[in-house]
């Protein structure tokens, strides 16, 4: 009995009227945990009941504490008939189970009903007393911290990054067919909500156990998903990265680590001097010999092949294809040995992180992905979800072997997803093949400052671009050049990754969101035939998505993609592909060649003319984009770089056993040959269409930037205003003569119009950037396409860039020329920045002005506090001197509104999909937020139709997330993600239903301006580091 859960029900407010006669409610509350239920007294005739209950105490196992949610039900007492439920609150008490997080959950929670939505609020206090229990056989994993954030959380330090953890649990879905059911909608929805809550708890506990086994204490990049498989059940699965984290004690200590573009710890393995502190056991200069091969396209090679053909009708027992891993011989370099020894114990050397501690990422190979089409069958024994496990194991194995083929021993930025339609399911996994620094992967890696000093003199910021594979034995042809930064290593011409841009990467100009969109019609079919049809279509879709991405990237004049996410969605009669990524110009990579159009039939004169016209348009677009994104790569002459291209290297090994996947690679050559200019052959109307569609993408209006990564490359002067939003659109296709082309156009328009609407809506925030733009596509019905976008708009200050960059520029005058180059970028940037005229009249009286909203709020709260004090002192003064013309002054206003409950001010809770809050420091992580809601209506028209229904529901979900964060004592949720938004409607029955799953990390942040003492120390640290750097490099 290692825990005591204590709950107190304080009060309710804004309850709905349950008794029409009196216009009042006789409310009481049931508090349930596990199988124990307590009740409060009935508070008669009030919409604002004050129960002020005793402490309800539950004595429970910590296993239950982890699995079970606390369930609070508010009811209306009825003497003569059954009590009516008003609504429920589920509270996940997990955050109370580890010491560093929240100690108490206390606050107003929206009372939620799956039919009526939010119906008032209830004030609850929850505490947990945990007894220390050293039971060896314990099944709980209390104390393991979970983070959705896909980087090392800001106030922690990674001691060891253990690696991949995964788990899945399955269950029968209590009621997936919501339209024709026996139970009442409310009962069935609540059963589902509760089940999913239980399953998530169980899943988290199981993952926690795995982490403890690995001797870690945290999971970072925790991603939990639901597969609503319909008849075959409900799967909840999660992946994450197990770590051992150390809390950084004082905020001053972590500031430099988090903020200064990390100059420490670069590429130890490349150190010419044997570094005593790395775990090297052999000669220390092997890596020059290690020449790998690469093409970014590699990632798109037909990796889906092995599994999408076998349909898992004959389950494989041997774990897939990976023979590559066992290859040995002289080729293996030191680094490889080290890291492999560290990684080989792991079944899957995968990391869900997208941003890494400095020095962790050594090389990046490219994107690896695998898809597999499966037929869902009933899960007979939920306790042994072997089939689903085997499916994922297969895919992971494939990913692993693809990574090997790219000369990489690990996969970073790893994620998994599914798309389900009827009984067909596409499983997808993708990540970025990488070579990692073993330092973080092993025990006993707590190094002193000495090592960091030594490492600082390594100038390379381009290391991650260098190819990790064998140049002479590339999986397929690619264009390699010497790195434009260091001139020592080879780099590919284009780099695709699923990770965030490393903070120390040198980028020229700004980045931009690049999307490839694609639809393919498919015949309606059943079971195996359907699965086969889908499998056959997949490689073509991958190919086309890749081609589109490549074309658009070139059109932008850029050479690398970060945060690449390709979603393939399956519907009854079509497949949709949507790839989003952030394009940048990496200084280390060569300037991309243009796009050249070549006609197939050169004899026709007018055709020729048309071609040349198109060519001109494309060239103009590229030129325009270069200007727009400020891509002015410096002319690098050999003198400046000063490092001659090294002698051809000695190859220690040319032979390499081909892995299964590299065999496949040759089947489908996605590299488009190796040519300086990218040639588009227009051989039919389809190709023409493609070229046209390339040119239809409109750049965002001036003052706007967008990206799908955490930070926008090229913008670093964020101001504090943020606006997170979700936008959903559903379009109905006219079913008449649907062609692929028409479909593509519809889909393209849908996405483009959605973006245009976002830019328009957020125009008052200009200059601003949409970050972490996350598109999700689903096909709820035959002719419906649903696109859901979540992103955050962040304002930035154009002028401030000067101030913030000045200091480093001055301080680093003595630095190497490569560094100077990078820093010089900023002044250049500014010149061009100030030129474009403002598209909207600035600060027009009518425009929505949200600027300094946060500041206003905080000052408002200050004011209330002041007022509260003065009131307590007994000098109540009703201010009557408001300026007549203006709207009410805040403080004044608030003072009068003094409600029955004195401190019921609704605190502002920020939400963002990013892992940070601009202009603020995260001082505490309070725990993971993982919430699942179902909302249903049988009066769709009355609730404003589908738009009204979903609008209200999403607003309610936001509200419930904010309330939980506030009750934990937090003021923001970071790494927020809406993982699922499943919307179904039946307008004929006036019904609709929606399921939403969201997650994120509840945090406490403090504005930087409030941290003056701390921040004043920062420049000193910066100075020191740059000084030392200067000394070493000269």
């Amino acid at each position, binding site marked *: 009995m290692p825990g005591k859960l204590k709950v107190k029900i304080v009060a309710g*407010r804004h309850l709905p009227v349950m008794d029409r006669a009196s216009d009042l409610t006789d409310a009481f509350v049931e508090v349930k945990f596990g199988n124990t239920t307590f009740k409060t007294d009935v508070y008669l005739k009030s919409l604002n009941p004050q129960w002020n209950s005793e402490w309800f105490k539950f004595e429970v196992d910590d296993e239950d504490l982890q699995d079970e949610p606390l369930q609070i039900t508010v009811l209306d007492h009825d003497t003569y008939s059954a009590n009516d439920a008003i609504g429920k609150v589920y509270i996940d008490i997990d955050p109370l189970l580890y010491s560093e997080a929240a100690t108490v959950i206390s606050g107003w929670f929206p009372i939620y009903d799956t039919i009526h939505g939010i119906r008032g609020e209830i004030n609850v206090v929850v505490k947990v007393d945990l007894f220390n229990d050293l039971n060896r056989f314990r099944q709980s994993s209390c104390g393991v911290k979970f983070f959705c954030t896909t980087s090392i959380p800001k106030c922690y330090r990674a001691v060891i990054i253990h690696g991949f953890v995964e788990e899945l649990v399955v269950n029968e879905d209590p009621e997936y067919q919501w339209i024709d059911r026996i139970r009442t909608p409310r009962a069935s929805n609540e059963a589902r909500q509760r089940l999913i809550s239980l399953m998530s708890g169980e899943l988290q506990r199981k993952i926690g156990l795995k982490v403890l086994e690995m001797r870690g204490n945290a999971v970072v990049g925790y991603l939990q998903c639901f597969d609503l498989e319909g008849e075959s059940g409900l799967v909840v699965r999660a992946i994450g990265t197990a770590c051992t984290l150390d809390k950084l004690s004082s905020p001053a200590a972590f500031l430099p680590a988090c903020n200064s573009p990390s100059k420490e710890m670069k590429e130890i393995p490349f150190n010419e001097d044997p570094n005593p502190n790395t775990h090297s056991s052999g000669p220390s200069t092997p890596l020059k010999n290690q020449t790998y091969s690469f093409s970014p396209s590699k990632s798109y090679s037909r990796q889906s092949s092995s599994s999408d053909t076998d349909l898992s009708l004959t389950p494989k027992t041997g774990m897939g294809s990976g023979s590559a891993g066992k290859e040995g011989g002289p080729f293996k370099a030191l680094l490889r040995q080290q890291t492999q020894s560290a990684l080989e114990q792991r079944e899957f050397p995968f990391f869900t992180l997208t941003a890494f501690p400095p020095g962790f990422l050594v090389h990046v190979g490219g994107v690896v992905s695998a898809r597999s089409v499966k037929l869902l069958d009933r899960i007979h024994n939920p306790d042994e979800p072997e089939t689903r496990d085997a499916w994922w194991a297969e895919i992971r194995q494939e990913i692993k072997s693809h990574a090997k083929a790219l000369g990489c021993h690990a996969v970073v930025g790893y994620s998994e997803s599914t798309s389900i339609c009827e009984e067909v399911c596409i499983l997808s996994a993708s990540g970025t093949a990488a070579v990692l620094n073993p330092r973080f992967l092993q025990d006993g890696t707590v190094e002193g400052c000495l090592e960091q000093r030594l490492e600082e003199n390594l100038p390379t910021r381009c290391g991650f671009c260098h190819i990790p594979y064998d140049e002479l034995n590339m999986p397929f042809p690619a264009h390699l050049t010497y790195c434009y930064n260091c001139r020592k290593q080879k780099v590919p011409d284009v780099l695709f990754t699923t990770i965030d841009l490393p903070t120390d990467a040198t980028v020229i100009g700004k980045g931009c969101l690049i999307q490839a969109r694609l639809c393919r019609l498919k015949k309606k079919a059943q079971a195996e035939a359907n699965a086969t049809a889908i499998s056959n279509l997949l490689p073509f879709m991958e190919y086309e998505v890749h081609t589109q991405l490549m074309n658009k990237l070139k059109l932008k004049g850029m050479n690398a993609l970060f945060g690449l996410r390709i979603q393939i969605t399956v519907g009854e009669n079509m497949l949709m592909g949507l790839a989003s990524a952030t394009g940048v110009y990496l200084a280390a990579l060569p300037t991309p060649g243009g796009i050249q159009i070549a006609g197939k039939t050169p004899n026709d004169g007018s055709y020729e003319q048309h071609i040349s016209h198109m060519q001109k348009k494309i060239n103009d677009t590229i030129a325009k984009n270069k200007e727009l994104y400020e891509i002015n790569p410096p002319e690098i002459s050999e003198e400046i770089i000063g490092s001659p291209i090294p002698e051809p290297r000695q190859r220690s090994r040319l032979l390499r056993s081909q892995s299964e996947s590299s065999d496949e690679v040759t089947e489908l050559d996605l590299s488009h040959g190796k040519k300086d200019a990218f040639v588009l052959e227009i051989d039919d109307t389809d190709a023409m269409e493609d070229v046209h569609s390339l040119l239809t993408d409109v750049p965002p209006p001036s003052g706007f930037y967008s990206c799908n990564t955490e930070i926008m490359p090229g913008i670093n002067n964020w101001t504090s205003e943020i606006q997170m939003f979700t*936008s959903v659109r559903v379009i109905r296709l006219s079913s008449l003569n649907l062609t692929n082309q028409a479909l593509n156009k519809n889909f393209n328009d849908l996405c483009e119009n959605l973006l245009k609407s976002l830019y328009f809506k957020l125009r008052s925030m200009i200059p601003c950037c949409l970050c972490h733009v996350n598109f999700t596509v689903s096909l709820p019905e035959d002719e419906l396409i649903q696109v859901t976008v979540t992103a955050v708009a962040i304002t930035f200050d154009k002028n401030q860039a000067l101030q913030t960059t000045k200091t480093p520029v001055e301080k680093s005058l003595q630095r190497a020329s490569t560094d100077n180059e990078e820093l010089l970028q900023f002044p250049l940037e500014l010149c061009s920045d100030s030129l474009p005229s403002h598209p909207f009249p600035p600060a027009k009286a009518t425009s929505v002005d949200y600027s300094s909203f946060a500041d206003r709020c905080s000052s408002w709260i200050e004011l209330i506090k002041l007022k509260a004090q003065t009131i307590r002192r007994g000098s109540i003064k009703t201010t009557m001197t408001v300026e007549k013309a203006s709207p009410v002054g805040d403080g004044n206003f608030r003072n009068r509104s003094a409600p029955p409950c004195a401190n019921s001010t609704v605190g502002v809770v920020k939400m963002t999909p990013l892992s940070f809050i601009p202009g603020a420091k995260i001082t505490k992580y309070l725990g993971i937020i993982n919430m699942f809601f179902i909302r249903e209506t049988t009066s769709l028209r009355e609730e404003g139709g589908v738009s009204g229904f979903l609008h209200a529901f999403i607003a309610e979900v936001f509200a419930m997330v904010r309330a939980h964060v506030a009750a934990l004592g937090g003021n923001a949720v970071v790494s927020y993600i809406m993982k699922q938004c499943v919307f179904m409607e039946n307008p004929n029955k006036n019904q609709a239903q929606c399921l939403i799953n969201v997650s994120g990390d509840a945090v406490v942040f403090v504005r930087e301006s409030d941290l003056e003492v701390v921040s004043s120390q920062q420049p000193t640290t910066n100075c020191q580091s740059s000084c030392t750097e200067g000394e070493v490099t000269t």
Partner: protein
Amino acid sequence: MTSELDIFVGNTTLIDEDVYRLWLDGYSVTDAVALRVRSGILEQTGATAAVLQSDTMDHYRTFHMLERLLHAPPKLLHQLIFQIPPSRQALLIERYYAFDEAFVREVLGKKLSKGTKKDLDDISTKTGITLKSCRRQFDNFKRVFKVVEEMRGSLVDNIQQHFLLSDRLARDYAAIVFFANNRFETGKKKLQYLSFGDFAFCAELMIQNWTLGADLKELKVLVADKDLLDLHKSLVCTALRGKLGVFSEMEANFKNLSRGLVNVAAKLTHNKDVRDLFVDLVEKFVEPCRSDHWPLSDVRFFLNQYSASVHSLDGFRHQALWDRYMGTLRGCLLRLYHD
């Protein structure tokens, strides 16, 4: 390709003041879009009409959802569904409760009942204010009236506490409630020249200084007792001789004016007759003076002297009552005395 569903939900609720105005003014989405197009927003932003349509719909939906909360503004402050910065909340409330001068003049002093609500159609046609907007304004009046009707304490304070309005707007609402409660007649043709501001000014004076049930009948002696009336007249005339441009007119009219002013007081004791207060004031005082072209300064002189001279009437025992009555009445009359 048609949009089945199209929504935007921000963690901070986006409020577009321009669209809010259009919504409050009762325009349909289509009309609002047309008006926005006319404002040149498309050219300014490079947006398309479809974008504008989607944006307008979205804002309208938000406002529709907020409307329920705006009916009880403290709820807007404490609700959790919409995260709105306090300054925006204030703006939403203030604008929602703001009303049109033309509308309020039509409704002022009328019973806020269903009957009046039925007349909103006509008011809408007459004023050019959309019916929707008329309904909102009328419902606001009625809602505020219902809430504060039975409350004790300062009317303005009660309104401010329950509706979180600015001081100015709360005072206006106090006037509206006061007028609705007393059912003052304001619609007569001869009262048309008066603005809402004039009435609100008078209402405020009356709320502050007058209490119901005071025995104003006692004042009647001032005109009923012929000696007292003559004495009063001679006191005023003596004091004002040579100081008033319209002296002779005043002298000739004194008894009528005095009778008018004192009778108003007497009528105030009968609830039924209270309604005619403004009609009486205009008929019995403002119009006679205006027809004789009294300048405002002379009106002020006269009223001061008229009021003060009563102190010298030995037979009159209700000095305090008189001062309270005339103090307010003088203020009102001076405000009402214009073209």
